[in-house]
């Protein structure tokens, strides 16, 4: 499955890191997050040009066919730079779901456009984004003479606002199936939800006899969904690990330069010891995210446990590191203009998406048979 060497991965990752450093400083993130769609369109096109939007798309569909290891690595950079946009929801989640379902015709039509950056997709699965949070009436699909129609609603759909198409999981008489809904479909209502993390877009979708096309699946839909969700969780863990590391770097740099009582605050044990503890969090999160990616890319039987381990450890670590970072900065980080709170907002959001740390701790024990 992995077609990438370690060197290839490093080179893609380094390219993305350079791009973010040059084209997506936090000032750009702030601009993007104030826009309606939450997308930095120029950056999105640059990512497409680098092939990165096709990271989860097979080469035959115009992607680069990266595996979980590469996706995790890229997401560390996304987290570090706090990049705003539908990378996780479209380039990872939607692409992986399409690839897992394996409808040749639809994949051939959509995936090349997604890799090229011209098509953004969102996935609407009850309970997926906010595991454990039932909300509204689960979508149901029925076949009419004129084709399939969907009824129901899904909340907490990530970056659905800017999506050109939606992949909607809906119950049918034969069980759960995934449907393709056009963004401008009749009977589709998208209500944006205001979010605490301004770099995140969430919507509630309502379907009222919305026309849809059923996506053919070469395996059980639940299995395809579970596979895609595992990849999304690994990607999110990478974002968390990368974000935590960047925040610690920023904080350590500040602690070296900020002088109080005639010496850098980082020379005081109160700050130094917090930083040491946070480094342990950051390294542990990194280890967990990368191990989950490694096992997932190998198709290992223990991948599920590793994914839950990473989701729980990285979720908690990112929140702890960003929360302590504000304290370590002191007053300056209590201002809107300082970036620390942007990371805390992202960390708090990430810790809710696709299952909380507590949820994944329980999942981990179960995966272990305990």
């Amino acid at each position: 499955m992995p077609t990438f060497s370690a060197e290839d991965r490093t080179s893609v990752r380094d390219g993305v890191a350079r791009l973010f450093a040059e084209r997506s400083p936090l000032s750009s993130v702030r601009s993007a997050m104030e826009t309606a769609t939450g997308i930095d369109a120029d950056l999105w096109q640059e990512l497409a040009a680098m092939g990165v939007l096709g990271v989860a798309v097979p080469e035959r569909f115009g992607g680069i066919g990266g595996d979980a290891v590469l996706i995790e690595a890229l997401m560390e950079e996304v987290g570090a730079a706090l990049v705003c946009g539908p990378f996780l929801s479209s380039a990872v989640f939607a692409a992986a779901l399409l690839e897992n379902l394996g409808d040749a015709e639809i994949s051939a039509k959509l995936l090349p456009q997604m890799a090229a950056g011209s098509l953004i997709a969102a996935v609407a699965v009850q309970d997926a984004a906010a595991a454990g949070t039932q909300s509204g009436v689960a979508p149901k699909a029925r076949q009419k003479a004129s084709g399939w129609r969907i009824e129901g609603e899904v909340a907490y759909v990530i970056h659905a606002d800017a999506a050109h198409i939606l992949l909607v999981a809906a119950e049918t008489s034969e069980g759960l199936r995934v449907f393709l809904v056009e963004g401008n479909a009749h009977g589709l209502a998208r209500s944006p939800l205001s979010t605490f993390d301004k770099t995140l877009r969430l919507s509630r979708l309502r379907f009222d006899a919305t026309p849809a096309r059923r996506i053919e699946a070469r395996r059980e839909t639940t299995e395809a969904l579970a596979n895609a969700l595992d990849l999304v969780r690994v990607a999110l863990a990478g974002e968390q690990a990368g974000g935590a590391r960047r925040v610690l770097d920023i904080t350590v740099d500040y602690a070296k330069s900020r002088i109080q009582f005639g010496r850098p605050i980082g020379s005081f044990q109160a700050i130094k010891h917090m930083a040491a503890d946070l480094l342990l969090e950051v390294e542990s999160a990194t280890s967990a995210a990368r191990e989950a990616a490694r096992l997932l890319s190998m198709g290992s039987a223990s991948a599920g446990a590793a994914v839950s381990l990473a989701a729980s450890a990285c979720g908690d670590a990112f929140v702890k590191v960003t929360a302590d970072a504000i304290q370590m900065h002191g007053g300056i980080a209590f201002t809107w203009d300082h970036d620390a709170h942007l990371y805390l907002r992202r960390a708090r959001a990430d810790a809710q998406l696709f299952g909380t740390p507590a949820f994944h701790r329980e999942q981990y024990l179960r995966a272990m048979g305990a």
Partner: protein
Amino acid sequence: MTSQTPRGSQEALRDEVRAWLHANWPGRDREAPHGWLAKVVEGRWAVPRWPAVWMGRDLDDEHARIVESEFAAVGAPGAGQDRTNLWANTLLARGTDALKEKLVLPLLRGEVGMCLLYSEPGAGSDLASVRTRADRQGDHFRVNGQKVWTSFAATADYGMLIARTDWDAPKHKGIGFFFLPMKQPGVQVRPLRQITGESQFNEVFLTDAVCPQENLLGEATDGWGVLQTALAYERSAMGEAARGPRRGMGQSAPADDPLIALAREAGAMEDPVLRQEIAKVVILKRLNTLNATRAKADMRQGTSSSLMSLGKLAMSRILHEEARVRTLILGAESLLDGPDHPRADDTNFLTLNAYFTSIGGGTDQIQRNIIGERVLGLPKEPEIDRDVPFRAVRTS
């Protein structure tokens, strides 16, 4: 705890306050009428511990508390300012006669807007490293620099300012303390947006601002000492405030604790994991209330209480923990924000605003230093910049 003073004098005082309130206050928990504070000052109830010349009564603490409790009983404001009015107390203790004549009574009457000009971008935890300069020019000082975290700066008439007056003295010994007039061209106020999105504070830019000589409190290089006086009044006032009734966070009767109310509403009281988390926070709050009650009893007995200095640290933990547990209760709902999602909005606000307590007014780290050193008597760290001319000190 029986009184050491004649019971009779207390009863007589109580009767006098009651009679005055009966004659002047519109009734239990009514709004204060226009000019109320002036009337309280006039009646010599605002600062009964103060000398008569400043509209006081030279009362001891026990008698003064009677005045306060009678005012509190009917919900009338304005008494007890000899404990709570930071500005007037500081001015009375250290100000020039001219300034006292000019401002003490107006301050008691609430006619003067005030703000604090202490912190600077480079002087947060380490206030003694202020770089705002006050240079003497004839009968006034000329002030240049930048202050930050100033509430009410836009409306204030005066700011209590610390500024460097001697750059060759060690850091603590070259600072002056001023009542800086705020309504002048040299003072520019810019609101500071906080992480919560609010703007309660301001940055204040001082460019050749003018401060009359008579607005200097104490010696021009003893501002650090004056500041300690002011901070002591501030702590005392804050301690009082913390012990008063307070809605929502921090202190409450457990039965109607808003955290439990939220948990009930969200169905979280059925979850044994969350119950333990909720109980921990509710218990921390209750313990803080009990500590405050003990502190008050200690102070009434005239013994200084180590409990006072613990309150801020305790509150910081409570606020952060409450925010954390609220987030656990809400789950994915905490992703949301804004008026359409008030529970999430409250929780996220609390998450961020908890830093106001854990950073503002001395970080938790500084607070632990203070508790360790002043309460437990642990030795200070070596202060490498203490006896060095400020010019030679390393600053941010």
